[in-house]
């Protein structure tokens, strides 16, 4: 078989895949006769109403001198770790706004941070392609810095997100710019499994965000620059269980819905979407009806669900934060955030 012949077949196969994908999308469109908003409306649900006092800024934590890139809560919701461009991690007491620790990082370009479920250690990762774990109970050295208790090396690109596996203190999942996600054993510092990369069903571009299923910690979902989100099972590293298409831009953030059956995404195309984990259907699109539909759509940089899941908080690159009613896709805008979370 000659080279040109191979090439032709490759082209044909690619075309085939594309047509199949289109058909799949069409089929999905057919099957998905309504979205959540339509159904909820037909059921006569009304949107959540806010008065101005319902959402108030409880506390402003002051102390960082650079942009805050990421923050995470302990499971008890009483402490916060935040990572900032000034090269520090700060652990806050969320109730009193006091700083309990300030950790100076060896590499200032930190992109993500995460609390361990037991609340005793924090992980952070950034442009140094490493994920560093700090034990909050360890002794500080002479300069008052916490020593790094473990460094997870092995990524070939920046570490864009990290999250401890719930109920397993020693497991950590990271997403990286090298198109892979990795499950680590924190105690040994070894990789347990690598998701993506060599395998054909992995992401084809940088992984920007991961989120672990809150009800089944074996499942996690990752969002990537290839405009897809993928669902993985930590026990099956060889392939992604499902791939979710729909966004037209990089998926900047993914977050599981509190019930663990669906997840939300936020993307460069300025929309948030809600996907059903099992069927792969796209349940709802949350997008602003821009009067001027030019390129200036602000990018969704981060999302979060309320505990009930009824509200979706979305942060945009222009500094706005919107609250979406997940059922009716209606929004309340409120500003006030000066940073991109």
């Amino acid at each position: 078989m000659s080279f040109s012949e191979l090439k032709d077949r490759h082209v044909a196969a690619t075309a085939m895949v594309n047509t199949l994908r289109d058909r799949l999308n069409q089929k999905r469109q057919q099957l998905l006769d309504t979205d959540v908003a339509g159904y909820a409306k037909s059921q006569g649900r009304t949107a959540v109403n806010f008065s101005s006092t319902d959402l108030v800024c409880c506390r402003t934590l002051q102390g960082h001198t650079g942009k805050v890139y990421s923050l995470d809560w302990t499971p008890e919701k009483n402490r916060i770790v935040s990572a900032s461009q000034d090269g520090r991690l700060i652990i806050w007491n969320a109730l009193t706004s006091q700083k309990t620790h300030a950790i100076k990082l060896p590499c200032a370009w930190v992109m993500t941070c995460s609390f361990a479920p037991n609340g005793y250690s924090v992980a952070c990762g950034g442009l140094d392609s490493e994920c560093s774990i700090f034990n909050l109970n360890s002794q500080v050295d002479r300069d008052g810095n916490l020593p790094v208790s473990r460094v997870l090396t092995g990524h070939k690109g920046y570490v864009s997100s990290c999250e401890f596996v719930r109920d397993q203190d020693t497991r950590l999942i990271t997403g990286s710019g090298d198109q892979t996600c990795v499950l680590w054993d924190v105690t040994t510092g070894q990789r347990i499994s690598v998701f993506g990369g060599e395998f054909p069903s992995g992401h084809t571009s940088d992984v920007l965000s991961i989120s672990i299923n809150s009800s089944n910690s074996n499942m996690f979902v990752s969002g990537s620059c290839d405009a897809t989100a993928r669902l993985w099972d930590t026990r099956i590293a060889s392939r992604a269980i499902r791939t979710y298409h729909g966004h037209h831009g990089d998926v900047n953030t993914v977050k599981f819905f509190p019930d663990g059956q669906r997840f939300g995404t936020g993307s460069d195309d300025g929309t948030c979407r809600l996907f059903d984990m099992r069927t792969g259907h796209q349940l709802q699109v949350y997008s602003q009806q821009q009067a001027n539909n030019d390129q200036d759509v602000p990018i969704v940089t981060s999302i979060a669900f309320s505990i009930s899941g009824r509200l979706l908080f979305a942060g945009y690159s222009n500094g706005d934060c919107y609250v979406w009613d997940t059922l009716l896709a209606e929004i309340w805008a409120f500003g006030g955030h000066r940073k991109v979370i």
Partner: protein
Amino acid sequence: MDRRRMVVLSAAESADYSFADEYKGPPLPYDIPHAVPIDVDRIPLAAVAPVSAALPDLPVVHPLPSPSSSPLKKPPPPHVTPAPPLPAASPTSVIENRAAMDRPGAEVSGALGSFGFPDRSTDLSEVVDSSGAIGFSDELGDGAAWSNEMMPNRLSTESALSSEFSFRSSASGDGDEDEAVALQAKKALLVTFQESGQSSCCMSPAVGVTPRARSEDLEMKIKKGACHRCLKGSRFTEKETCLVCDAKYCSGCVLRAMGSMPEGRKCISCIGFPILESNRERLGRSSRVLKKLLSSREVQLVMKAEKDCEANQLRPEDICVNGTKLSLEEMVLLQSCSCPPNLKPGLYWYDKVSGYWGKEGHKPDRIITPHLNVGGTLMRNASNGNTGILINGREITKVELQMLKWAGVHCAGNPHFWLNADGTYLEEGQKNVKGQIWEKPIMKLLCPVLSLPFPSKVANEVNNLFNRAVPDCFDTKALQKLLLVGHHESGTSTIFKQAKFLYSSVPFSEDEREDIKLMIQTSIYNYLAILLEGRERFEEESLDEQRDKQHLDSSGDVAFGKQNKVTEYSISPRLRAFSDWLLKIMASGNLEAIFPAATREYAPLVEELWKDSAIQATYSRRNELQSLPSYASYFLERVVDISRAEYEPSDMDILCADGINSSNGVAYTDFQFPCLACVGSSIDDDDQQEALLRYQLIRVHTMGLGENCKWLGMFEDVRIVIFCVAITDYDEYYEDANGMVRNKMMESRRIFEGIASHPTFEQMDFLLILSKIDLLDQKMDMAPLTLCDWFDDYNPVVSYHPHNKDRRGAQIGATKAQQAFHYTAVKFKRLFFSITGRKLYVAQANGLDGDSVDAALRYAKEIVKWEERLVCDILESMYGTEPSSYSH
């Protein structure tokens, strides 16, 4: 008694507020701190001194007066009372003693004999500040009057002095005094002074003058500028002063008096106390004495501590805005707004709507950022106006009225105005805007005439230019970040390493060297693998050729052909096994996994392999191996050395090595440009300042960080992006992840476009460094520039005069490379202009040549400086041109 003392103190406090900024010279308080280290043991000495009338005691005594005056530390009374054997009433006598000690030499007799009458007033004042246990304020008047008769001149200074003392103590002492009481007390105090100071120019205005008088006085006492600790030295010896008490110490005593300086330059006893307002400007400015005593690193640390430590910060409760003391948040807000006021302790009023800012009871001082949520509500009498016209609820002063008139505002009938920050004003209760105050260009001229503020529009407009610089001003004002990016193998790492060699004393630590050694050894295996791969190909080719030959030479016998199967590219079976193994490892991509064990094990094998004629033959054809980097031969020729375990990389090796560290992340280094001693005759202050600027070179590996440039947002605070392109890339190709062969120059161009058009870098300056310029010369002869699609319109002007060519052969060769350089530069400049509409700076460099890298980085520094100037020029022109165009 006690009450009275408090009253006096608070009076002084209010005096402090109203005159705060008049103090220029070293104020009285200097005295106070230097005394602070009270040595209890010394007090008896002092007591003895007057008895024995001994002159030599005086130097020992010196420290005493200050302890007494230190506001927070009460001198222990028990010691004091027993001290004087004099028959006078107890408190006075103590004081007398001290006063006597105050005056070295000169007036000992007075102190001894006559209870030191002339010094009475000083004593009194000291009593007032220090312990105050004894109710002396009654006597203050008396005493002053009394001594007035004796020594009128001296007294005036002293009384002024005493006011200083009390101000000092109050400042640090009780801040919560009732203000009304304070005011009353102030009056009372003033009266006292008047009495005492009749003869000369005392009184409240004199307060501003007194510090000088006082300091002279002080110097007189301490032998004209002697060190406060060893009491030696003259005014001309260099000294360091304590920020709190202004005590001066000579270089020998500084470290003993100030210890490790956890809060900067403060006597040990002053640690924890707030600094003097007059010393605020000195914060963080190092002195020659310190620099002599400590290493530069230590000085930096001390200065940082001095600037950052909490005790040295402006205390929010010292600042009152609209009658409300500020909280910390409010003060931070004030300081960090885009047009911050000049904050000093005092009472201010602030008009939130228009942004007017001034001292309480005075006309507006400046216009700061409006709508800050700071302080209480604006009072009607905030600026003490009496015109009956209100602006935003504040009765304005006459000067402002004048300004309003000039601005064409109708002020008949005492209207109440509502003035917005943008200058629009309306009458209270009405909706329609009546006009714009600031729009008349003449206002800009008139306001300074009336010494009224004019809104700094420029600050608002140029705001966005400053925005990116402001945040890092906060802590690391002097750190300028330079971002170095470039395509794979474009020379970024070499430039980075060269910068390390150039500017830092210890370029690479042991660990880093070890890391680099490993990296070089890994890469040498890499190169070998490429060679082996090439060898296999060449072997096949030559076998094919032979086969062809055999076909042609059909009659040739088989045996001959078989023999010939061994070509010059064939290797022995043992080496072949090694070669297969290495190639397999390479293919699986885990070359790193076998290190460093491989170095020990395979070193001899590598040596054998390298010496094998087949490899050498392949090596001689290395030009045909595209994937072999240009600098590989540098290492391959020394492969035998390198593959040994005991190999230590030389500086040159490090420069040539590929990459900086094994993790393909970011690398950064802080450096300063060393002073160029002989740059020119004129080294102005500007250059001096610059020497202090620190730069941080951040090198980012584009391959490792993905190509989506998601990370670029993290570098929004860099000052300049240095984009590196290897100029020799135009005919080089590489295989990307999808197996497509791409031209490296085109790839560089693609990344460059991506970065230049990234929204984060909208306002960023770019410097293009064309590296590997040294290799261009050789290459130009072999491969024309037009090999790259982008450069297909390159047709240089070549001189065709043959004799010219002969004569200046070398020169023409050089210009050829130069032409190519300029051509490439222009290509990039046009591209950059088409993307951003701005100018691209271009420099050339050769990574292996330190001077050229130095030149390129200095060029980057200059660009940063130019841009700063440019911004300044914009500011100036906005200020400068408008009035002038108006006046013509």
